[in-house]
């Protein structure tokens, strides 16, 4: 094994296909979009070089910053919901009855396509005959909120299906990590008289901290570039109340035919996400390695 891996050619052979795909499908388009961001271009006709004008406009564009704020709010909520996911995973891993079945049920939203989820929640939120408002009316509330049509509520109304959509994914990750903890540690704690809550908070959680940190990065980065449910459910509306960075970029490039400006926003989105990732990794970096 070691002999094979010490051969530089073998290493090259193994990594080359992935490297090629990443290069062609990710790195080249990234550079291109940064380049298009320097152009005044409608995506069809001739390009005109305008330097950093698009980037400067973006930094002064209140709509862009508003959409960035929405993206960050989504990131915050997604990160907070990780705690809830962890709690569910702890309960599932503590050998309750039907844990296996429940785990599978939680995973179902992961298996549905985003568009199907969006359609489902559009029906739930329908102000006149949606499930949610029918229940609220049944409870005697005469004027229930209009959810996706109310600019003050729409953003949070969309957060819920997003958080629901990813629950299964994170629960599965935590569950797997928790199952990795050696039984002997738990038993030793039990003999020392630790309560189940103490075992969970003082032994299990610290032991899977590394996994938890990875999921924080995953969820925040995923939130910052989030697009699908928002695009299908509201297209960023009404009047931009649920616009996030990615949907704003899309709108500029594909609805306003301002491809250059859209590319600039896309590039800024990349930079913002990169900076945030670095900051989070710095904040969550730890020196000690966990050993069982």
């Amino acid at each position, binding site marked *: 094994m070691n002999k094979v891996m010490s051969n530089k050619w073998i290493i090259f052979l193994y990594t080359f296909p992935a490297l090629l795909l990443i290069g062609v499908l990710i790195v080249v388009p990234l550079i291109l979009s940064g380049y298009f961001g320097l152009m005044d271009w*409608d995506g069809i*006709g*001739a390009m005109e070089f305008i330097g950093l004008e698009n980037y400067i406009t973006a930094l002064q564009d209140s709509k862009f910053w508003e959409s960035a704020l929405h993206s960050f709010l989504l990131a915050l909520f997604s990160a907070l919901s990780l705690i809830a996911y962890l709690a569910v995973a702890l309960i599932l891993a503590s050998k309750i009855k039907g844990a296996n079945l429940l785990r599978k049920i939680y995973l179902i939203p992961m298996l549905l396509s985003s568009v199907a989820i969006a359609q489902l929640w559009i029906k739930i939120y329908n*102000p006149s005959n949606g499930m949610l408002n029918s229940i609220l009316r049944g409870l005697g509330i005469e004027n229930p909120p209009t959810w996706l*049509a109310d600019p003050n509520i729409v953003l949070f109304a969309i957060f819920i299906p997003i958080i629901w959509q990813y629950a299964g994914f994170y629960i599965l990750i935590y569950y797997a990590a928790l199952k990795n903890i050696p039984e002997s540690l738990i038993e030793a704690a039990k003999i020392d008289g630790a309560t189940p809550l103490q075992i969970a908070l003082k032994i299990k959680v610290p032991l899977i901290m590394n996994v938890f940190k990875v999921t924080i990065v995953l969820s925040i980065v995923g939130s910052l570039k989030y697009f699908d449910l928002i695009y299908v459910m509201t297209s960023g*509306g*009404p009047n*931009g109340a649920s616009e996030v960075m990615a949907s704003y970029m899309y709108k500029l490039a594909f609805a*306003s*035919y301002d491809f250059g400006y859209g590319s600039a926003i896309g590039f800024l989105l990349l930079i913002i996400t990169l900076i945030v990732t670095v900051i989070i990794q710095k904040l969550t970096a730890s020196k000690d390695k966990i050993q069982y």
Partner: protein
Amino acid sequence: MFKKKAIAVFGIFLLSVFLLAACGGGENESGSSESSSGDGDKTVKFMHLWPEGSSAQHHKVVNEIIADFEAENEDTTIELEVLSNEQYKDKIKVLSTSDELPDVGMTWAAGYMQPYVDGNMYAALDDVINKDDFVSGTTEAFSVDDTTYGLPLELNISSIFYNKAIFDEYGLEAPETIEELNEIVATLKENGVNPIALGNKDAWTGSMWYMYLANRLAGDEDVLTQAINREISFEDPALVGAAEEVQKLVDADSFVSGFNGLADEEAKSMFMGEQAAMYLIATWDLPNFTTNEDVPQEFRDKVGYFKFPTVDGNGNTNNYVGGPGVGLFVAENSDVKEEAKNFASYFVEQWGERAVTDVGIIPATKVDAGSLDLPQMYVDVLDDLNAAENITLYADVQMSAEDAQVHLDMIQALFGGEVTPEDFAKAHEEALEQE
């Protein structure tokens, strides 16, 4: 030892799979392009936006026309791709960016078409179009500098469709003035019926209400078009007044609740599910109210329509919001341009005949209704169209893409009460002035 070997072999196997897959793809591609340019067999790519699910009759007639065309031109094959409206717009945009438009496809008129014409994407069609076959005004909408780039397929005017059964139940009659409309709304509200279905998530739906109100307030002047063409300011009294009227309608709860979050399809299904009494839409939906067998006959019998009412005694009800819908374009860089043009003109000709009888919509080509057995509502709409004095083209089609986006956002804000009529007009004026 065995293990090492196995890993190395597996690695090489994986690599060769990748390489083979890549080669295979290339081979296929070159193979197909050869066959299309080779022995006289031409393939014309055609994209349209009438999927079987939502436009069953359109879809069927398109397939029939293609089959007939292929039977008459044995060396030409039509390769079809069908997408729904919004997806179609997105895909065309992406394809045009990489210069890979289908040989024949659908386009909207005026402002929508402009960047494609400027980018030299559409072929000039003057050699295949016979303008006398078309209703006047339709080919003009698809022309830039006297050159025609699109063969118009439809002509639409919008009216308010209403449920006669609901109206009868509460002793209501089709209104002629906005005051009467307001009274109807009040009566319906009292009885717990949703007055008007509106899906303003798509915003062009709300835009039609706004455009009609502006048109009625201004009398016989087409103020909206004039403002877009920069002949007058958007802060014209009629254009600001129309915004005020919109907010009055909203304040009176005329529209279904949460309309700003509903798509047009959802609003339509409320109207067709008899959960709302009225629905402003253009004549492309006529089949749903006349000939579409998938819609229960019982419902189709209940639908009537009235012209958009006058406002404060102003307005000419022979003025309409509408215009040509989609038309066919031929790609400038098509390898099979001649065949594509032939197909496009064949399609438009056949479409004109069958759109009336088989689809139940109004084509852009002239219709001789006298000889055909048509539903009464269709005949009435055709009469309206013939008596039309002015048709204002949809604002979002008239404007450039960027201004159209401002307009649509502002329409949502106006209906949502987030912007005053004055600021609404000001935002338009600023956007239009920037060009």
